[in-house]
């Protein structure tokens, strides 16, 4: 199963780079927050796949902490932009 996991994580990594290069053209800042959310989800799945590829259980804990941190970061960013008002 390990080559399949490697292929899946390479496909997900291509998606991450595609969003990363296409978001530079957007003028709006909330789009960037949205893309942080999308990349966070993809990176979560990639981290869990890495933990199965390399047989290391610690990566699962890293993935759990990463999900919590990205959730809190996005909520804080969105509330900050909302409170700053129109720009």
């Amino acid at each position: 199963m390990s080559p399949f996991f490697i292929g899946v994580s390479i496909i997900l990594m291509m998606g991450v780079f595609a969003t990363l290069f296409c978001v530079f053209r957007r003028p709006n800042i909330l789009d960037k927050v949205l893309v942080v959310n999308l990349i966070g989800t993809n990176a979560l799945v990639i981290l869990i796949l890495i933990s199965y590829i390399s047989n290391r259980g610690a990566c699962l804990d890293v993935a759990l902490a990463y999900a919590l941190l990205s959730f809190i970061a996005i909520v804080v960013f969105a509330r900050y932009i909302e409170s700053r008002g129109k720009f």
Partner: protein
Amino acid sequence: MFDVISNSLAVLFLSVGVFFLWVGVIGVIRLPDIYSRLHAATKCDILGAGLALIGLMIYEGLSFNVLKLLLVTLLLLSSSLVVGHVIARAARRIDLVPWQENREEKLLLEKEKLFREIFKV
């Protein structure tokens, strides 16, 4: 035998999950508006990552790691809802207008109509 069934189910779920993650990526790149992009991104969170994690749970079998995977899935399910609501509310409060087809042409037509009403042309 059981091994073969669980592995093929895991491959099936992972492939569907990766498909939905790519749907989210393409939606965020291609759609014209923050609200519709938000629609695509939250679908990608719940369906894509949720199905991929369910496939990995089936692959893992019965062990302690399944509990962690279940915890990540539940966290994603609840956090995706909150993130979608918070971003949509911020976009609404800073007055981002939703996308309309031929927006400039409609504005021009309205101005022309107003001009004719005022000056009786």
